[in-house]
């Protein structure tokens, strides 16, 4: 478990004082994949670096498994860092050393016997699928392969925590999802807590259990990925969610809606979780009441294994029927709200 207690980080940039972290309170449970999302400069990398003290908090405490790591001596800190692996955006491999030597480095530093290093490194390279590249140099590898080496290296000392600093931001979408599924495997198979920071909401959607949204050194929203995605509170979070959920109504649909048409119609937005309930409810409503229901736009994604989506529907018919249908749908526990500005 990692706990941030009122952590601040301030540094001077010339005459300017920058509050990289501005009072962070956050708990990351053991074994979860915790994502921190935010724009660049929001302080997420600083937050991440407080877990292995590559950046030292100005005030506040960082507890890892109950120990305040800011109080560690130099030797204790080095020991601590061996229990925390780190993966970087730009891989940070040694170009002068082979893939094997790169992965072996943390073990050499920890003075592990050679025979054991050999065994462990080959095991790791096998795990990340690069056993045949052991004697290659980093500049002979693709970006995705380099990141696999970075991940193998981070796992060498069998850490209990893995920090990922924009680990997929330098990779193409296909490679990104391969790396993400590797991270997920690591989390599930080795029960390693993963703390990752990213500016891509898709990364959060793909593998995270929990998410925190950061802005200007503060956590402005946090919770399970499911809750945050299905019910974002702040504008920034809504924007982030929008970037992957496409809850915004496309312009073509908007044009369609703005065209004046005969008859009474209203447009509603439905948020549904776990596909089962919604559609039957809608069709039932159409059958039961004297109105037409027209699905204008929809979007479904999977969040932590559960389908989750939005539907934009149009109710046409007499006002009274529409209201009765609404009540009916609401009674079925479906979240339905009028999409403002589209009704006539």
């Amino acid at each position: 478990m990692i706990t941030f207690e009122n952590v601040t980080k301030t540094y001077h940039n010339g005459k300017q004082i920058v509050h990289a972290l501005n009072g962070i309170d956050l708990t990351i449970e053991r074994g979860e994949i915790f994502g921190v999302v935010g724009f660049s400069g929001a302080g997420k990398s600083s937050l991440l670096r407080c877990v292995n003290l590559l950046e030292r908090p100005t005030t506040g405490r960082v507890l890892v498994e109950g120990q305040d790591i800011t109080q560690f001596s130099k030797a204790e800190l080095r020991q601590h860092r061996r229990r925390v692996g780190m993966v970087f955006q730009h891989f940070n491999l040694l170009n002068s050393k082979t893939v094997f030597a790169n992965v072996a480095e943390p073990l050499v530093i920890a003075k592990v016997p050679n025979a054991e290093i050999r065994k462990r490194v080959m095991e790791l390279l096998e795990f990340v699928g690069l056993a045949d590249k052991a004697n290659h140099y980093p500049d002979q590898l693709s970006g995705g392969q380099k990141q696999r080496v970075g991940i193998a290296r981070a796992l060498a000392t069998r850490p209990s925590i893995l920090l990922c600093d924009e680990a997929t931001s330098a990779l193409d979408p296909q490679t990104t999802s391969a790396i993400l599924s590797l991270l997920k495997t690591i989390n599930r198979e080795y029960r390693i807590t993963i703390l990752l920071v990213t500016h891509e909401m898709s990364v959060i959607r793909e593998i995270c259990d929990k998410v925190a949204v950061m802005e200007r050194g503060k956590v402005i929203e946090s919770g399970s990925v499911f809750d945050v995605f299905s019910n974002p509170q702040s504008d920034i979070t809504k924007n982030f969610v929008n970037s992957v959920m496409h809850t915004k109504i496309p312009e073509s649909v908007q044009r369609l809606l703005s065209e004046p048409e005969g008859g009474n119609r209203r447009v509603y937005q439905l948020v549904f979780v776990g596909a089962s309930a919604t559609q039957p409810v809608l069709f039932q409503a159409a059958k039961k009441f004297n109105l037409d229901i027209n699905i204008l736009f929809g979007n479904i994604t999977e969040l932590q294994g559960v389908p989750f989506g939005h539907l934009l529907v149009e109710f046409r018919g007499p006002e009274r029927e529409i209201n009765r249908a609404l009540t009916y749908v609401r009674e079925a526990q479906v979240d339905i709200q009028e999409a403002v500005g589209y009704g006539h």
Partner: protein
Amino acid sequence: MGIEWTDFVTALEQTLTMVGFSLCFSAIIGLPLGMALVVTRKGHILENALVFNVLSTIVNIIRSVPFIILVIAIIPFTRLIVGTSIGTSAAIVPMVLSAAPYISRLVENAVLEVDTGVIEAAQAMGATEWQIIVRFLLPEALPALVLGLTIATIGLVGESAMAGTVGGGGIGDLAITYGYEQYDYHVMFVTVVILILLVQFIQTLGNLISRRIRRR
């Protein structure tokens, strides 16, 4: 008053002796000095403003003294170290003194080129400062270091020519005594050709080694 081919051989030997020894000693001093200039600077792993400023100032002072003046000025010191102020070994002392700070700057440049991300990775895996220097900075900077040392070696070939002042001998001395002072253009021509070949050889060798390291 003739000059034999064996004189050229002797001179070449003297040049190689002076350059070789002074390269060794100045690298032994310059390498740690250059590394210290990197790691003690602001924001680096062993930040120490006092050490950094003192070292940097000393390096600058020595580097600003013209070589020929350095040779003369440190004669008492040279005598103290090698027991004489005349001859090949006496020439090595000022050569080392002038090349070491130069090499330290070349080392500093080469090491600063190492991606800071590599240092961060090293720290993140729990490396000590010494391990960061030896296991990360040095190997990563090695190709650039070799090129830097190549530059320094060629500089030393040039300085060895002026070592004639203290009776150091060598190819350059031959060129000055016979060619410049006695207008023997044949000797001058041969010595210059030898120097060109020597410099060419050193640079090619340096490039080759650097490339080998980079593309091992």
